[in-house]
Structure formats: C-alpha cells, structure tokens
C-alpha cells in the first residue's frame, strides 16, 4: 500500500521529483566515476610496473638491494642452473646492474646501467633496438624523461665511465639508439639500458647477472640456491604502500561526495515535509497512522534513490562506457614528478564498486529521509491540516 502511494506521490510530483532524482543521480555518478578514476589510476600504476618492469617476478642475487646502489658492486654471479634453464627456455631474462657516470654535454651525471637481453619479450621495453653488430660503441636505450634531463637525442654520443670487476675504471662512448616513451619513471630517470652481453664484457663479468625476471604465471623453480625469489606482490609493495598511504584521501573524497548527495536529499526531504504539511494532515485525517506517514516519506526518499540509480544507468551509463574506453587525457606528463600516472586516465569500474556505492547511497538516503520524517511523528494532525508545524 505504502509503495503504491509512494510511487504515486513521487511520479505525481513531476518535475520536482525528477530534479531531485537528477541531483541524486549526479552524486551517484560522481561517486562512482571519481572512485573508478582513482582505482584506475592506482591499477594503472601497478599494471605499468608489471608490464614494463616486473613481469611475473624475479630471482635476485642474494646481495642485491635495489634501494642501495653500493650493493651492486657485489650483486652479480652466474645464476643457478635451474634459473639458467628458464633463461634458455625464454621463460626468463637476465639483467645485470651496475653504477656508472655519464658525461653528456660536458656534465657529469651518475646513472645506473642495466644490461638486458635485447630479445626478451617478457616486459614491454623496446629492447630489440639494442641489437647491434657494431662493437665500436655502446648502444644505449633511455627513457623520454632521462633524455629530457640529460638533453640527449637519438644518435647523440656521450662518454660513459664505469668500474669493472677488477676495480679498474674504464670509459667508452655510448650512443643513444632509441628514446622510449614510458610511464614508469623507475626504468627511466637515472637509468640507461644496454645489451647484457655488452655490459658483461665491459664489467668483465661474463655470464654474470644481478637478477632474473621471469614470465607471468609460472611456478618457482625447485632449486634457486641462495638466490632470492621475489614475487609480484613484493615487487609492487612500494606502489601498494603509496596506495595505502593515499587511502585516507580516497576515503575523504568518497565521504565528501556522499555527504553532498546526502545533504541534497536531506534538503529536499525537509522542504518536502514543510511544503506538504497539509498533505500529511490529510493522510492522518483519512486514517493513516503517524508511523505509516513517516514510513511513507522515508520510502519516498528510498524510491528517490532507486530512481536515481536507474537514471544513473540510463543517462550516465554511456558516459561511464566512453571514459572506460577512451579515458581522460591529462594535460601534463607526471612522470617528471616521479609519479606513474597514465597520459590518459582510464577509470576502472568493478561490480563491487557499483554494488557498494548503491548500498551505501541507498542506506544514506534512507537515513537522511527518515531523520526529517521523524518530525511528522511529533506533528499534531489539526495543525498539519491547517498547514502549521508545531515541532
């Protein structure tokens, strides 16, 4: 009965209802879209790291600590045989890491050299450009950020100086063979990429590597000796830590949008009760109990939320779809700031996001509909009939 009357009241109010529903629907859209954008941003950062750096995980040399370049000097050896077999089967590729200095345009700059197998296909790096037969120079691949920072262009030559395994300083010319576009600043800023065999020769470390990155979704080898397996979860922990640190911001944003939606509905409910005093009195005179009148107004608020959900799907569904496919282009490159942010932000929607948002908004709407409706239970029917409020 209440549902029927509630639907009649809502639909009968025409434009007033649809405006309220639209405002709630915009809040729905904003909450879902902003959360999805946020999730998309975080997901993208993780995905970029996995695609361009981590793949399925890595076996580290026991002395390797990527946060401490001083360890690089001792973090190299021939990998255990089972790991070597993975490399031979193209299910992994080796990387040798060492410190060096470069002298672009007469300036000195410390860098990290990473020797990589040029034919690897496990991570999304254009390493094939490092395939060269010319041994008179060192082919070097750098990122767009590094190129900008060092003012180097494709074909530029610069001096490279390093300490080899015999603790002897050597130097040679490096040539930029390619400048790659990457959103992952960790493989760009301060990094230069070389063919691993070339680097092994330079460092006098034949067949030695620092870590071996393996393919996604393959099990760990049985015997990795003293090498240390690091899975994706471990390798993206810094990203997870940033996300976790950022969680309060996401919650604040979510709550702010929710409060905005709640205030809109609360406002319309309060207005509704003030505007509809006579109607409330009439309902009471016709024999509706106070509890039922309160329930009716609360239900109308709930129906408002339900219609808003439908409207969100109908009106904003295509908007969700469009941005889900094409994203929102960002005007500046954030990789210079040490952030992994896509050049185009793509929101990531999940069923969980839709359901949790719908439940939270519907719950909030019911509460903010109920609170002003409680005034009705304190209203004298005789005053309500005259359009007066005595609470």
């Amino acid at each position: 009965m209440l549902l029927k009357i509630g639907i009649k009241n809502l639909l009968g109010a025409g434009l007033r209802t649809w405006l309220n529903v639209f405002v709630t629907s915009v809040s729905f859209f904003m909450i879902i879209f902003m959360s999805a954008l946020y999730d998309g941003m975080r997901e993208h950062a993780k995905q970029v790291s996995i695609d361009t750096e981590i793949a399925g995980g890595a076996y580290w040399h026991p002395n390797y600590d990527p946060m401490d370049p001083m360890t690089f000097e001792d973090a190299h050896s021939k990998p255990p045989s089972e790991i070597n077999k993975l490399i031979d089967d193209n299910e992994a590729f080796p990387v040798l890491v060492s410190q060096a200095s470069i002298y672009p345009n007469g300036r000195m700059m410390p860098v990290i050299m990473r020797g990589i197998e040029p034919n690897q296909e496990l991570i999304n790096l254009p390493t094939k450009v490092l395939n060269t037969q010319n041994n008179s120079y060192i082919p070097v691949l750098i990122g767009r950020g590094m190129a900008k920072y060092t003012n180097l262009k494709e074909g530029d030559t610069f001096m490279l100086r390093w300490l080899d395994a015999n603790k002897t300083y050597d130097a040679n010319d490096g040539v930029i063979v390619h400048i790659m576009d990457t959103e992952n600043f960790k493989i760009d800023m301060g990094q230069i990429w070389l063919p691993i065999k070339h680097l092994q020769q330079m460092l006098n470390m034949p067949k030695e590597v620092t870590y071996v990155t393996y393919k996604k979704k393959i099990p760990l080898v049985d015997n990795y000796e003293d090498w240390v397996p690091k899975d994706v979860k471990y390798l993206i922990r810094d990203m997870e830590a940033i996300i976790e640190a950022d969680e309060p911001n996401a919650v604040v944003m979510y709550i702010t949008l929710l409060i905005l939606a709640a205030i809109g509905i609360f406002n319309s409910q309060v207005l509704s009760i003030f505007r509809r005093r006579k109607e409330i009195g009439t309902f009471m005179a016709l024999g509706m109990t106070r509890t039922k009148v309160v329930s009716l107004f609360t239900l109308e608020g709930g129906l408002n939320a339900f219609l808003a959900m439908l409207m969100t799907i109908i009106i904003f569904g295509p908007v969700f779809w469009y941005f889900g496919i094409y994203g929102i282009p960002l005007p500046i490159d954030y990789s210079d700031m040490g952030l992994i942010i896509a050049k185009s932000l793509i929101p990531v929607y999940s069923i969980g996001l839709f359901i949790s948002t719908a439940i939270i908004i519907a719950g909030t709407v019911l509460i903010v509909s109920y609170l002003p409706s409680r005034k009705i239970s304190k209203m004298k029917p005789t005053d309500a009939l005259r359009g007066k409020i005595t609470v």
Partner: protein
Amino acid sequence: MNSNSAISIQNLVKSFPVGGDFFIALKDLNIQLLKKEFMGLVGPSGSGKTTLLNIIGGLDAPTSGKVSVMGKHLDNTSHSERAKLRRKHMGFIFQSYNLLPVYSVYENIELPLILNKVDPNKREKKVKEAIEWVGLSHRVNSRPAMLSGGECQRTAIARAIVHQPALILADEPTANLDAENSHQIMKIMLQLNNELDTSFVFATHDEKIMSYLSRIIHLEDGKIIKDEKIK
C-alpha cells in the same frame, strides 16, 4: 450509551495553553448524535465548532470529559486506534478541500480505499460509484488545480463517502463556494444521508445550508446555547 447513537459526548472540556494561561474552547458540552442524523454545529468564528469536530474525529484530544464515536471511547484509545476508527468509519470534508495536488480526481477518491486495503476490482467499482454520485464522471483524470471550487468540493465529498463510512464530519464545506454550488453540494450530501444511512456533522456558519439540516446545535464561546431539531 444508546445503541442507535453515533456520537456520545459527556461533560466535554477543551482548553489550550495561551501564553501563561489557558483558553477554554469548549465548556462542559453534552451531545448525543443518533445514527443517520444530519446535524449542524452552528456559531460564529471562535465558538468551538472546528475544535469539537476535531475531537469527534479523534484528531484532537479532550482536556476532560468522555467522547464515544461509533461505540468507541476516544479518551482511552491510542493514536493508531483513532487512526483506524477514522479510516474505517469516518469521512472528512474540509473547507479548503485538502485534495492531494499530485493525484487525479480518481486517485484522490481512491485513496481511502487503498488505505483500507480494498481489493483493486472492488476499488474501481466503488470509486466509479462515488464519482457518479457527485457527478464528476467527466473529470476523473483531472488534477485538483484544473477543477473549479465546486468540483474540488465534490471530489472531497466523493473521497469522504467512497468507503461508505458511518459518519461524515464536514468543516465549513460550503464556505468557499458560491450559492449555486453550495446548494448542489448540500443536495448531494442529503441524498447520501438518505441512501447510505450516513450520519453527518457539519461545522458551519453559512446561512444557506441551514435549511438542509435536521438538527442544529448553536455554539457560542464554547457552550451550547441552543439545540434545535428541525422537521
């Protein structure tokens, strides 16, 4: 209490707090209304007509005294019991119609039946009957804003009688109407009184409708100054 009695009022007093004092709106009233009576509460503004009507309708509570409507004592019933009594056995007609603006004529009239959980098929039949009684068949889909004052009041009457209550309380039902509409409305109510055996209580100071009443209680300053039966 007489079994033929629709309303029984004994020593009814109603007072309202005004500032630090009390204003006594009804002073020691005693009234018996028999079933099928067509009674008017007549008096100037402030004489207590509407207050008495509200107390009979269970919309307001007496300060002291006993009020029984359709055999139910109102002084010791809960809000919801009084709401049920109104829903089942009473109909209200207001001076300003109090029609729900977003409902059509049909939906306004249907509302008491929905509240009484009447089966949809029976509901349709009863609404159509009520619409015919008040002569609004051509206006069923109109909203109150599109109706004249007379049509609004006829809709309100149809809403009050659609569930065929035993008692109808009408507060100044003709105050906003011209003479012709007032007479039409009164004729309709008189006809319903005869055909449906419904008791009517009017609060009015409209001279035009006096001639239709079978009993007039004159109120002044909250007291009955005259109780006249008209043949």
